Structures are given as C-alpha cells and as structure tokens.
C-alpha cells in the first residue's frame, strides 16, 4: 500500500488539515513531509494530522513528524494529531513522543 495525502485548509479553524491515506514509512515519509512543507510555505498556520485513514507508520514516519515539530518550534504554530488508530498511538507511547505532540480529542489537549 502506498500513500496518498489529502491536504485542505480549514478557514474556520485557520489550520492546515492533512489526511494521510495508507502508510507513512521509509518509502513514503519524504513525500509526506514535502506535502506538508509545501502547504506550510504557502500559508503559515497550525498543522493538523488526521490519522483516520493512516494504516501504518514506521520510525522514519515518526522521524518526519519530529522534523515538522522542530520546524515549528520557534513559531507560534503547533502540530495537532487526531483520530489516530490505537496501534499507531501505541508507537507514540513506546517512543515517548506522546509528550511532544498534542493529541486532539484526548485529555491532553491544550
């Protein structure tokens, strides 16, 4: 399974929403990151990763997300992750990345 990413700007929330469909792995993580960067360059705003149709992510995919987090660290913008499947959420816990990201719809939303 490859990866397709739906990109939309939500004007009400003033956030970019990315819906990866498929797998973010060593084969597709660069493509995913480039898609996000392209949108962000076009308009600087918060980034939402909607994981409803994300079936799998590997450590390189998590690495791509960390890269995006670093890009935003000196800006007022944030990355939100939502609708993530339990098997993928588990990887954030294992790698202790759960404390770095904001999971929307969970208790730690700020």
């Amino acid at each position, binding site marked *: *399974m490859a990866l397709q990413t739906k990109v939309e700007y939500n004007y009400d929330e003033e956030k970019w929403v990315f819906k990866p469909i498929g797998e973010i792995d*060593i084969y597709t993580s660069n493509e995913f990151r480039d898609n996000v960067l392209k949108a962000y360059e076009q308009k600087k705003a918060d980034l939402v990763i909607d994981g409803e149709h994300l079936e*799998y992510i590997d450590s390189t995919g998590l*690495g791509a997300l960390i890269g995006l987090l670093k890009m935003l660290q000196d800006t007022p913008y944030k990355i939100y992750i939502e609708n993530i499947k339990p*098997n993928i959420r588990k*990887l954030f816990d*294992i790698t202790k990345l759960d404390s770095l990201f904001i999971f929307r719809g969970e208790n730690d939303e700020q």
Partner: protein
Amino acid sequence: MMNNDTIKLIVPNKKDYLSIIRLTASAIASKLGFNIEEVEDVKVLMGEASILTLCSENTNQLEIEFKIDEKALEILIKLDGELKKEMLDKKEVEMSKMIIESLADEVDYSKNSIKLTKLIN
C-alpha cells in the same frame, strides 16, 4: 497444524520490498491465531527490523525465516552483509530499536542476523 513449519522468504535488501515483507509477516501472524493487536505488532516489528537491515553494510539480500511452533513465532532475518555495532548505536536507529525491544518478547542481534520472537498466548 502449522507446528514446526518453516517459511522462507528471500528478498533483495531494498526499501521497495518492505511492504511485501511486512505483509508476509502479518499474514503469517494472522494465520497463527494472533489477535489483531499482535498481528499489528508483528508487522511493525518486521518493518523496523527491515529498517535496520537497510542501514547495515553491504547487505544485498535478506533471507527471512519464519519458524512456527506451538509457543511462538520466531523470525530470523539473515543478512549477507554485516550488522555493525556502531550502526546499531547510531541515533538514527534508536527509535527502531526502542520499538523492536518493546514489541518483541525476545530480540537477538548478531553480526549477520536479527532474531525476533513473539510468543503465542
């Protein structure tokens, strides 16, 4: 039924084949009666182990052996190249190792192989 059977997969050490390796591993796990979460674990394990082999030196081909017995699924990944200790200590592969160590019941790294064991509950 599938006790003491072995399935072998010989595959080039290229990222193009990663999804095939992962799917094979999860198909075997599913056939063995692992639950959905455990099947996902096996898929993730296989994917991360394959990332390590992609980082290894001079490895062109992998021979992956899935050994099945009543207690466990054992995945032995043999490399025709070398898995150096310096590579395994690099920051780039830290997350892979964390994930593998957390999801596998046993992990064994040697110079030319990675062995992963997932117990059947």
